[in-house]
């Protein structure tokens, strides 16, 4: 009787709500598509206008300028911009170079986890054979050793190996500096390191509740091309 009636009414209300929701969604979709259509029409109109302008010639606007000159100049400027962008891309890869009168000058840039660190330069002569004229590579990087192995035979490998060494060195140095900076309250004194930053020794404290535990750490990086340690010794 009454309950059954109420149930049917409930079911009807539910259905009506569902239908309303559906129509709402449809309307939203329609609105979105209409907006998209308007956007595309606008773009098309703009491009069309550009094409028309180019076809009619630019003399319509300036009047005094030679129609041929600005467009050649615009092309040149575009070329310069895209060349500069290309050089920027090369620089960002980490190894870039420029031909010099007597050879080529390479710039090796280093980075660690997205942070740009130092750049190092190598001025090479190419005649009578490839050799290093000047450089700004730190003295503790085994440049002569790497050059002896690869410079004459495979210059790409030479640059890749040297770049690995330099990137790993600056990465290790950066990590040591960050460690000293951000954990200075936990580390006792200063980090004991060396020029290549491939051996780090330090003491730090771990406190829990009322006790503090002193730890002694020794990080060894035997792979000079790697910025992570190969051997870690922690003693209490």
């Amino acid at each position, binding site marked *: 009787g009454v309950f059954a009636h109420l149930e049917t009414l409930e079911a009807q209300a539910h259905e009506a709500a569902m239908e309303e929701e559906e129509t709402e969604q449809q309307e939203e979709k329609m609105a979105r598509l209409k907006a998209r259509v308007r956007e595309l029409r606008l773009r098309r109109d703009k491009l069309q206008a550009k094409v028309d302008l180019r076809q009619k010639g630019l003399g319509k606007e300036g009047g005094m300028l030679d129609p041929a000159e600005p467009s050649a100049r615009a092309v040149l400027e575009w070329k310069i911009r895209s060349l500069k962008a290309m050089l920027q891309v090369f*620089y960002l890869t980490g190894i*870039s170079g420029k031909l010099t009168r007597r050879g080529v000058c390479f710039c090796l840039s280093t980075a660690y986890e997205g942070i740009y660190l130092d750049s190092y330069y190598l*001025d090479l002569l190419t005649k009578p054979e490839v050799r290093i004229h*000047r450089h700004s590579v730190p*003295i*503790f990087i085994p440049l002569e050793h790497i050059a002896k192995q690869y410079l004459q035979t495979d210059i790409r490998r030479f640059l890749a190996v040297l770049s690995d060494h330099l990137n790993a060195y600056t990465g290790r140095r950066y990590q040591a500096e960050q460690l000293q900076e951000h954990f200075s309250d936990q580390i006792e004194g200063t980090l004991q390191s060396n020029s*290549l930053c491939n051996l780090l020794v330090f003491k730090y404290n771990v406190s829990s509740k009322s006790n503090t535990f002193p730890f002694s750490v020794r990080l060894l990086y035997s792979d000079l091309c790697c910025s992570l340690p190969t051997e870690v010794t922690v003693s209490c």
Partner: protein
Amino acid sequence: MDETVAEYIRRTVLKIPRDEIKAMLQKWGFLSESQLQTINFHQIKENISQEVVQLCEENSADIKQAAVLDIIYNHIYPNKRVWSVYQMNKTAEETEFFDLTDFKKKFKRRLRSALKNITINFREYEDNAIWIRIAWGTPYTKPNQYKTSYVVYHSQTPYVFISASVLKSNLPLLCQALVLASNYHDIREMELRSHSLNSLKDIVFKRYSQNFQTHYPRPLQERNVAPENADLRIIQENRSEKERIQRVNREVFGDGPQPKLEFAQYRLETMFKSDPKMDVLDKKEPFRCLVKFSSPHLLESLKSLAPAGMADAPLSPLLTCIPQKARNYFKIREKKGVFPESFVSP
């Protein structure tokens, strides 16, 4: 506290400029803050040093602690000494792990095994520089704290900077200890000397500015743009020549400050070239002659020679090769061959 230690501390404090004394004592850390508060740093140095000695007496300073103060002084004022550069060689190429404790142990052991009476102190700085102070004695006398040798070494590099004392006889022993401790095979003195330790480091570590050609746009130097003269009647007659000189100078010397050297010495062993009719020297012997350039800042003055109009640009490579060849003592001999030019001995 020993009388000699007290006297040594007193004399070391007297060397320090009065305004710096407090800061240096704080760096030393031997006297506590409260003790330092009791000293009047505005009185004459004689009295300041007496007060410092008294406080050191209270803390019973020994010679090792006094030596640390000396290192700190020399580290802040290294230009009071003359530094020579030594280069070490090794044939093996395995990766070195330079362990500081290992280095110090080996160094001390080698020196002490040869000489019992010796004071050795180490101090490390953040730029990985290890400062070593050595006071030499003899088998029969205590170490003379006033005739000390200083060694500055950066780990994993082949260069050592030594400011030897008057006692040159201890130099071979010192070199031996360095080679042993740093795992190298031999050591030789380079022809590079100066008062400015940092400039010597700049030269051998190649930290000075070299002009490398790159595509990557770096901030342009403003020096090119000369201030426009208000008076347009003044015309630069040889502007292009001036610009050429600037350009050549920049190529050779780079843009940044030059390392500081006080002199360059050229020992000439070349033949005297004169009109054959004059016949000045009938014996064909090299005309021995020593040319020495002195300056408070030699390389900067060489850099300014051409722009000042006192020399032609480019300068002689004998002068401009100094930082690159890392030497300021040269021997120039006659080149044997077709060309009568002189060449620089290696």
